[in-house]
């Protein structure tokens, strides 16, 4: 039976490899210098693959991805860490038992539903409240993305905070520190790697998120630095345009290139996050600085 199970062990490795291979394989039409130049250096930076002369600059799309990610993280990181701190250091145990599943419920909302909410409901509220020119913009999409990211930041940060040994807290109380001082000056710094890892993993999730940004971002691949304009992200572009490309053409290759880019970025960022989490253990157990 050992043999049968060993085969299972290989599946994950094989498929990760295959995913990279087959995504990369279809980029063949654009694996050349002129195409790369067009992707990154074209002036003006415009993405219009379906016009008579196709313009394939990825700059507006990359910019859109960054804008949405930044807004999402700006919301999710402080809120997630604050909730984790409260849950781990100040909430009575019974309350903590309730908070965790509630936040996990938020994680259980499918991203297409979150996208729906942002598109139909949130956008209207924001526009009524702030008078945005464009109903669908980076703030709308980024905020909805942030809602989806909060559970990631919360869960991993909270695990890190709870893992800080009790003896540290006791030593701090014995020195006459209040609960708040202990939480902020001893526990949180000790859990800093976990909190950092949660940010990194949230970043990876934000970069790859498709539905929310496709539905709530406004679908305009424009190069602009303001958060009040609509945007397009890498994943949303793939989702929106893959249905209508000619297989094997330049547009097709460009979309697969975006996919490969997404794969590589999230691979690196997730590996980094995992590495931080793994190394955290030895620090806590008294490994030398």
């Amino acid at each position, binding site marked *: 039976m050992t043999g049968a199970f060993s085969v299972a062990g290989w599946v994950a490795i094989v498929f990760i490899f295959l995913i990279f291979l087959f995504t990369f394989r279809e980029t063949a039409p654009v694996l050349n210098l002129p195409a790369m130049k067009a992707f990154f250096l074209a002036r003006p930076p415009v993405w219009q693959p379906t016009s008579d002369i196709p313009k394939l600059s990825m700059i507006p799309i990359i910019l859109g991805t960054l804008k949405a990610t930044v807004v999402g993280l700006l919301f999710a990181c402080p809120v997630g860490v604050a909730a984790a701190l409260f849950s781990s250091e100040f909430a009575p*145990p019974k309350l903590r038992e309730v908070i965790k599943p509630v936040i996990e419920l938020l994680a259980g909302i499918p991203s297409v539903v979150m996208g729906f909410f942002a598109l139909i409901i949130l956008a209207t509220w924001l526009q009524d409240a702030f008078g945005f020119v464009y109903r669908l913009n980076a703030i709308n999409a980024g905020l909805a993305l942030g809602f989806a990211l909060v559970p990631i930041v919360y869960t991993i940060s909270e695990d890190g905070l709870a893992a800080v*040994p009790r*003896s*540290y807290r*006791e*030593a*701090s*109380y*014995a*020195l*006459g*520190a*209040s609960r708040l*001082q202990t939480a902020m*000056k*001893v526990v949180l*710094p*000790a859990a800093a790697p976990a909190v950092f890892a949660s940010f990194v993993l949230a970043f990876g999730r934000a970069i790859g998120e498709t539905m929310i940004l496709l539905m709530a971002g406004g679908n305009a691949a424009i190069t602009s630095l303001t958060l009040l304009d609509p945007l397009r992200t890498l994943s949303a572009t793939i989702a929106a345009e893959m249905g209508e490309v000619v297989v094997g053409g330049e547009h097709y290759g460009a979309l697969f290139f975006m996919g490969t880019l997404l794969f590589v970025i999230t691979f690196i960022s997730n590996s980094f996050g995992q590495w931080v989490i793994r190394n955290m253990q030895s*620090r*806590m157990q*008294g*490994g*030398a*600085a």
Partner: protein
Amino acid sequence: MTTKIEVRDFNFFYGEAKVLHGIEFDIPEKQVTALIGPSGCGKSTFLRSINRMNDIIAGARAEGRIAIDGKDLYAPGIDVVSLRRRIGMVFQKSNPFPKSIFENIAYGLRIGGVKDRRVLDETVERSLKRAALWDEVKDRLGRSALALSGGQQQRLCIARALAVDPDVLLMDEPASALDPIATQKIEELVYELKDNYTIVIVTHNMQQAARVSDRTAFFMLGKLVEYNETRTIFMNPGQKLTEDYITGRFG
């Protein structure tokens, strides 16, 4: 001999279970008082009641009076946080923070609002000297405290407790996790410290109590069985139970 800590009819409960029964005695100033007794006799619980560390345990309840310099610690309205600043505690297993040696010692000062770098430097040096650790670490104050040996870490924790200048030092089996040489260093330290601090030390090692303390309290099953000068307890105990324990008739 002035009394530093006064204990009157002190009872302690974990939920429904009563673990300390009517403890009553006086702890003198600037001397070492040892609490001895078999495991589970309540000596650690009593020690932690002095700086109200038991407050953080759910279901813990105290009745009676423990007074330092005449002020009852369990009176309503007492600020536990400032109380703990006046009393230092060293734990059984050393627990330095995952910070540098300097920051460990400076921690107590920082949370008290001290920011002046000069004051911090001076206090850190003074505390490390008092804990007989300065010479060993003065060149690496910025390194992590976790890189020190077990004995050094424990002396660091003592220095950390001393940095906020407490009147009373509570030590809960401070050498039980250490090798004989490190233990000896700790014992010498305790002997020196009593010139300036009132020390209450819990130990399960009777020879240690005999070596280090001026007065000894023998606890058993949550009751204070006998309390006297250390010489008397060990040479000429008044209670049969005490004598049985000293001579090793039971653990």
